[in-house]
């Protein structure tokens, strides 16, 4: 049922109802409601996985020697996950359901300390402009939370 539910939400977004899930999974509506009293409960069960995946990507990205490469790697892999999964996008970027997962935020914020704690003189420190405040504000990519 969970696999069917994830498929359905990935394709149609979170507007799909528990009834839709039941139909898609070829089970009775009652079967779904017995396991999950509300759609939120079902979503939580499904997307715990997706959020774990994103947090794991952030962790892996932090291991890259070059912070710009790590950033690019993270963005591309994050998009790989979310581009094909509308339900995950809606879950992760809307407070109506979850909101940008705290774990991912924490991991990304932690990268600032990670960066500074690992000063390697030979390592190139790629930069990009933080927000749009101009050159004076440029910082290593790892300092950013977004």
């Amino acid at each position, binding site marked *: 049922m969970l696999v069917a539910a994830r498929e359905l939400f990935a394709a149609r977004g979170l507007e799909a109802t528990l009834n839709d899930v039941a139909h898609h999974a070829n089970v009775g509506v009652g079967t779904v409601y017995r396991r999950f009293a509300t759609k939120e409960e079902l979503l939580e069960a499904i997307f715990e996985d997706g959020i774990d995946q994103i947090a794991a990507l952030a962790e892996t990205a932090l291991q890259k020697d070059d912070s710009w490469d790590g950033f690019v790697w993270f963005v591309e892999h994050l998009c790989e996950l979310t581009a094909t999964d509308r339900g995950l996008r809606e879950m992760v970027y809307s407070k109506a359901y979850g909101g940008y997962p705290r774990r991912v935020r924490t991991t990304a914020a932690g990268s600032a300390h990670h960066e500074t704690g690992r000063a390697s003189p030979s390592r190139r420190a790629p930069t990009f402009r933080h927000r*749009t405040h101009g050159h004076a504000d440029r910082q290593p990519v790892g300092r950013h939370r977004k």
Partner: protein
Amino acid sequence: MPIVSLLAGTVSEWASHVEPELWRRYVALLLDGMRHREGQKRLAVDALEDEQMDAAMQGWHPAG
């Protein structure tokens, strides 16, 4: 980050039946645009602050 990811999703929804990987093109453009170069002009609009980001997420109810 949400903007990049939402963009990838929208491109994918729009054109994945024609070219499922098309989103990669636009993510690459955005990434390239984020990279610092000498002589860049200030962008027309600043990025959202954290509180604004929260407000945007709060206001976006993807139906259901």
